[in-house]
């Protein structure tokens, strides 16, 4: 259901761009207005989302410890999986963000003759890592359209990416890997029963969208070519805030740009914000040092207690008979002790009820 809906949505978006450009001729709208709106939305949107998260405090030090804690000097601490220092946390976060450390732990379980067996389950990690890294490289490669001359690191990246020198234009490996990896992620979502069961339309949509983006990009580079100089004229016009629509850019370019713009607009309002959120995850970005340093909860408030004095009032005689020391022996001031049994004093300073 969700999958079909998302596929239809992506096809419809492509059709909209096709009709808009090829039949109605709204080149400025699809080539200028939409990209500006999209870039503005993703930037403002992501900042807004991060600030919203930032406004909620982290009241407790809830690091998930995934290894040996720091305790006695002769016990080897697992400094990256259970860091107790800032540098350790930086290391842990770097592993998490650059190499998907936690996903690397993944295993699969299987029930065989009444026994659970676990085996390595690294395909998700591999596909996810391949997908995210190639997506990043493809994005960086596109910087050749946004600087004149193209930055040296982009050229270097391109020659690395095309080092096999297959065909002309040279085949960029990242584009192909990106498409394969994202297709695997889609296949997995459809083929693994549990994952299909938990999937929403919002999970299929970005996958189909990215597949469509990669496909139009690859088509444009290798098969339905467009005049790249005109394309750069358009992109340079955009970033120089003097937009132009050069003649003769094929419609596939506009479809590609429209799909990318959709992704940009969709990004901050969807699960895709995990890209920013992962940095803020309190189970990962806190040092496990909560016994060494006090973690402050900004909304910590006084609560209603049952202080020792009241407890002693409840059990004074029993304690004395059992030989347990008391603060106020019952022989000395039994009545006084009874009457001042703190209820009022304590209630006064404490907010009533839950929260």
């Amino acid at each position: 259901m969700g999958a079909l809906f998302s596929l239809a949505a992506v096809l419809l978006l492509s059709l909209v761009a096709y009709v808009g450009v090829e039949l109605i001729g709204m080149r400025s709208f699809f080539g200028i207005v939409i990209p500006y709106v999209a870039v503005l939305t993703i930037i403002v949107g992501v900042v807004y989302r991060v600030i919203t998260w930032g406004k909620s405090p982290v009241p407790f030090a809830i690091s998930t410890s995934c290894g040996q804690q720091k305790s006695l000097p002769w016990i080897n601490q697992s400094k990256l999986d259970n860091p107790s220092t800032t540098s350790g946390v930086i290391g842990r976060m770097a592993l998490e963000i650059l190499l998907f450390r936690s996903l690397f732990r993944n295993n699969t379980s299987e029930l065989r003759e009444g026994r659970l067996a676990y085996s390595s389950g690294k395909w998700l990690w591999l596909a996810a890592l391949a997908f995210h890294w190639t997506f990043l490289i493809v994005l960086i490669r596109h910087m050749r359209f946004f600087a004149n001359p193209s930055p040296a690191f982009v050229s270097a990246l391109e020659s690395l990416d095309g080092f096999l020198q297959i065909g002309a234009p040279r085949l960029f490996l990242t584009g192909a890997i990106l498409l394969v990896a994202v297709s695997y992620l889609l296949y997995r979502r459809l083929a693994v029963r549990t994952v299909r069961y938990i999937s929403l339309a919002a999970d299929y949509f970005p996958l189909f969208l990215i597949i469509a983006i990669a496909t139009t990009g690859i088509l444009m580079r290798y098969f339905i070519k467009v005049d790249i100089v005109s394309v750069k004229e358009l992109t340079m016009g955009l970033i120089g805030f003097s937009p132009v629509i050069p003649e003769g850019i094929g419609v596939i370019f506009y479809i590609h740009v429209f799909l990318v713009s959709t992704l940009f607009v969709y990004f901050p309002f969807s699960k895709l914000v995990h890209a920013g959120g992962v940095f803020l995850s309190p189970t990962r970005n806190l040092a496990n040092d909560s016994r060494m340093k006090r973690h402050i909860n900004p909304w910590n408030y006084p609560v209603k207690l049952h202080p020792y004095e009241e407890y002693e009032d409840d059990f004074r005689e029993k304690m004395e008979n059992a030989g347990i020391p008391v603060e106020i022996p019952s022989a000395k001031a039994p009545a006084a002790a009874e009457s001042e049994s703190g209820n009022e004093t304590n209630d006064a300073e404490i907010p009533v009820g839950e929260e």
Partner: protein
Amino acid sequence: MAKKPTPEELSKINYSLPYTGWMYNPVEFKDGMFCNASKPESLNTVDFPNARKWSVKDEDWNLPENWKEIVLEAMKERLEKYRSFRLFMDICVRCGACADKCHFFLGTGDPKNMPVLRAELIRSVYRRYFTKSGQMLGNLAGGRELTLDVLKEWWYYFYQCSECRRCSVFCPYGIDQAEITMIGREILNLLGLNIEWIAGPVANCFMKGNHLGLEPHTIKSNFEFMIDDIEEITGVKVDPSFNRKGAEVLFVAPSGDMFGDPGTYTCMGYMMLFHEIGLDYTWSTYASEGGNFGFFTSNEMAKRLNSKIYAEAQRLGVKWIIGGECGHMWRVMHQYMDTWNGPADFLEVPVSPITGTKFENAGSTKMIHIAEFTADLIKHGKLNLDPSRNDHLKVTFHDSCNTSRGMGILDEPRYVIKNVCNNFHEMPEDTIREKTFCCGSGSGLNASENMELRLRGGFPRANAVKHVQQHHGVNMLANICAIDRAALPPLMNYWVPGVDVAGMHELVANALVMKGEKERTQDMRLEDLPEKEGAEDV
């Protein structure tokens, strides 16, 4: 359970999924899978709202008229108070890495026990009421109306989560279902929807100082039994003190250790150890609970119960605190206590009076785990140990969820156990340390009416124990958790007969050669030690 299924039947877990989407399958309350509803008197004791008599299977849960408002308002408040909550609502990509990491999913096959779906139960409501896309697109954006059925579903599944954090280890963003369950339960508690197995102990702990409701004189007499047993086994009379002012150390243990087997053997172990090294310490009857069932209720309740530890340390004028073997107790002591009730500036950084080791890792909290303390003693050669007295045991170690994933105390207990036992075998790698499996009864779910849930939830753990039983003849499952000591024996009896359960300090006590002790012929359980062959041990 009316008819108790056999292990063969129960291990045929049905992982097939319904054809209809999860949002359209209303919750079905299955006998043996949930705990009894909280009683009004328990809630009243701690001033919790909507205290009334109710029953889970009733159609009408007697909720306040405006329950929906209360829930949504409470969600809003917590979204603003907990970055974790807001973030975990927003960034899940439903990759499914957590799905088969939950012991309750592995043991029940119920898809809503996949951590991701358990979170989606509340996330769908979040999307519907707190995101623009959900408000506009509803179902299409994964949003869902908050109905009574949804609320009941929350209740059923948030009390089928033991807050073990295993999912959080595998999640690429560290999304922690324990955090979501805790907040979910906190919201349910605003409507008086607790379980009695938690609400009762909470009320007990608030009024009497411990979950079991042991009154001071009862604690004392329980200890006298244990002291007698120690004397019978070792010939040494230990002399613990209670509520004694001026002691150097306050010792806080889970109350379970003071009451039932096999916890009491561990408790005897604590006393023997402290006696042997001559530690100047006291127990407290007021702070007689290390555990904290308030933690399974609400943040506020947890803080109310936890406050007794520092308050009592201050009243008694001790210098620092040692905590006993308990799982969730240590999540609380390690990650929450100082934040709630600190700073404990009236205490000193713990220094072992025997070895001189300064425990910098507890520099602020001033409370150390007894495994850290004992490991340090052994490392410095301060204990005279005869591990051969544990030769009748083939031991494996069950890491508790909270101490592993909410603290990371993994190698200290192993070091201690390997020094007091000659036969130690690890369970398979995917089932220990940070990947350890829950006993199936954590977070206040160790009642009897939900035994099927417990047996199913404990299935992955039991499986791993069975593995080492078959390969190494393991017959003793050691642990550092009071809920383990209560929950694992029935689990082992059911799934892996022939494996007993012991706290770590029971094993220490067996091996500990005390000054002036008689020749031991019995272990801590008063069971005869096998005749030693060629007994020439040190």
